[in-house]
């Protein structure tokens, strides 16, 4: 059947439904490089605004760092633009092996395998190492790419309540007879910014002979004293069997990802990981620039230290203004508003005041949990944070929410 009017109408209906239910996503046009301050057109076609960016995953401020840009230029000159091949045919340069080695050393694991994205890494792993006799037990708030990866696997699956260790124990008891069990969690959860209880998870894994998988996309490069990730923060270096992470956030922000962990599991991926076998190699220019990222991180902890200071400063500032925040130690700081419409309005007003921060509401987060998610960067200066705090103050005042508790907010605006 060709794409006839009937089909066209059907798709238009679906799209219109998204619009009328407020779920239609509109892109904002950024008219320059990623940074602490960016120029934005929103809606597209309206006059450009210069805004402080509080919603990028540019945690370490490396996305447009001159050293990284230079390394990318050099990489392009020395290693060419494309490889036109998957890894195992003729797509592996010594550069790729070098990055795998550097990541392995940085994360304190046994081996590493690169992917074009962490989405691909998470799509590859479960199917490659488990079969229908095994079980995956995942936290209920894991990232969408993990959910898709689990769907692709033949293994059985079950879930536990978010970070609820008693519930995880119950599930492990219930499934103790499966030959291979894999506990699956994010390291830092991207919507709440909370950290998985990896020390307790590892203890349970040891008790029940389970393996542990952690997605550290929102942690690699800055969580823990030397920025190795949540396994460093939780004192379980060397005890996480599989770590997946992205180069698309703190680690330069272009793209690419990897799985790092037990040597045999990484080798299983080289042999059986479908997005590895059937998709092109990570671009050389990105590989070269990512190597430079790790050189910077290995030289000093300055950037993750600055990020930590910024996070403390920002949390303190918002609390003192009287906003309700989600507790946590990560540079993801959700400002809780509970009501979806209020979150949208505040996001809009902040934008008018020169602060770019996005509202999240159902179905991205649970119903009645609407929020503005702010994210810190080492690139933010104290002056920029002060300016952003001033905007939050002004907008908070306008809506009469400064100093209100959760209950008062809900009473005033509803859920």
């Amino acid at each position, binding site marked *: 059947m060709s794409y006839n009017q009937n089909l066209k109408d059907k798709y238009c209906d679906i799209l219109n439904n998204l619009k009328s239910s407020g779920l239609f996503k509109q892109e904002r046009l950024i008219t320059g490089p990623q940074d602490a301050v960016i120029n934005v057109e929103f809606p597209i076609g309206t006059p450009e605004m210069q805004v402080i960016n509080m919603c990028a995953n540019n945690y370490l401020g490396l996305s447009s760092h001159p050293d990284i840009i230079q390394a990318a230029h050099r990489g392009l000159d020395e290693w060419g633009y494309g490889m036109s091949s998957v890894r195992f045919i003729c797509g592996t340069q010594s550069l790729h092996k070098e990055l795998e080695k550097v990541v392995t050393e940085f994360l304190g694991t046994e081996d590493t395998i690169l992917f074009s994205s962490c989405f691909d890494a998470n799509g590859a792993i479960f199917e490659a190492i488990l079969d229908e006799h095994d079980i995956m037990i995942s936290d209920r708030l894991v990232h969408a790419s993990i959910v898709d990866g689990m769907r692709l696997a033949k293994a059985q699956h079950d879930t536990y309540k978010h970070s*609820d260790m008693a519930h995880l124990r119950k599930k492990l008891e219930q499934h103790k007879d499966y030959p291979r069990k894999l506990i699956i969690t994010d390291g830092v959860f991207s919507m709440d910014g909370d950290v998985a209880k990896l020390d307790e998870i590892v203890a349970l894994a040891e008790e029940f002979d389970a393996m542990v998988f952690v997605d550290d996309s929102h942690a690699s490069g800055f969580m823990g004293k030397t920025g190795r990730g949540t396994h460093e923060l939780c004192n379980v270096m060397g005890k996480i069997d599989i770590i997946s992470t992205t180069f698309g956030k703190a680690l330069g922000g272009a793209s690419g990802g990897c799985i790092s962990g037990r040597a045999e599991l990484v080798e299983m991926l080289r042999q059986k990981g479908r997005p590895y076998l059937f998709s092109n190699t990570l671009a050389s220019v990105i590989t070269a620039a990512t190597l430079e990222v790790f050189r910077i991180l290995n030289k000093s902890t300055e950037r993750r230290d600055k990020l930590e200071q910024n996070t403390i400063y920002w949390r303190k500032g918002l609390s003192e203004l009287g906003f309700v925040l989600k507790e946590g130690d990560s540079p993801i700081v959700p400002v809780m508003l509970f009501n979806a419409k209020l979150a949208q309005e505040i996001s809009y007003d902040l934008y008018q005041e020169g602060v770019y921060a996005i509202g999240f509401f159902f179905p991205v987060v649970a119903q009645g949990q609407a929020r503005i998610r702010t994210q810190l960067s080492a690139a933010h200066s104290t002056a920029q944070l002060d300016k952003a705090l001033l905007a939050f103050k002004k907008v908070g005042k306008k809506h009469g929410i400064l100093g209100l508790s959760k209950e008062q907010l809900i009473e005033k605006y509803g859920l």
Partner: protein
Amino acid sequence: MEQKLIDFITEEFLSDDDDPITTQTKLISSGLIDSFSLVSLQTFIAKEFGKKIPAPKITAQSFDTVAQMMEIIDQF
């Protein structure tokens, strides 16, 4: 059956600060139960009532409330 379902769902899916559910509470469409966690509900029904509900029957439209669940369980 009603109470057993409500007890199981409360224990398995609700956190301490969630409101108690009734037979009419929307569970899937409201996001209280995510689609990936439906398996444990399916397993519970099979174990507890000896009914194997096929996956296509378990959707946000047809399996959203305890009342709807009981209707479908009765068909098998």
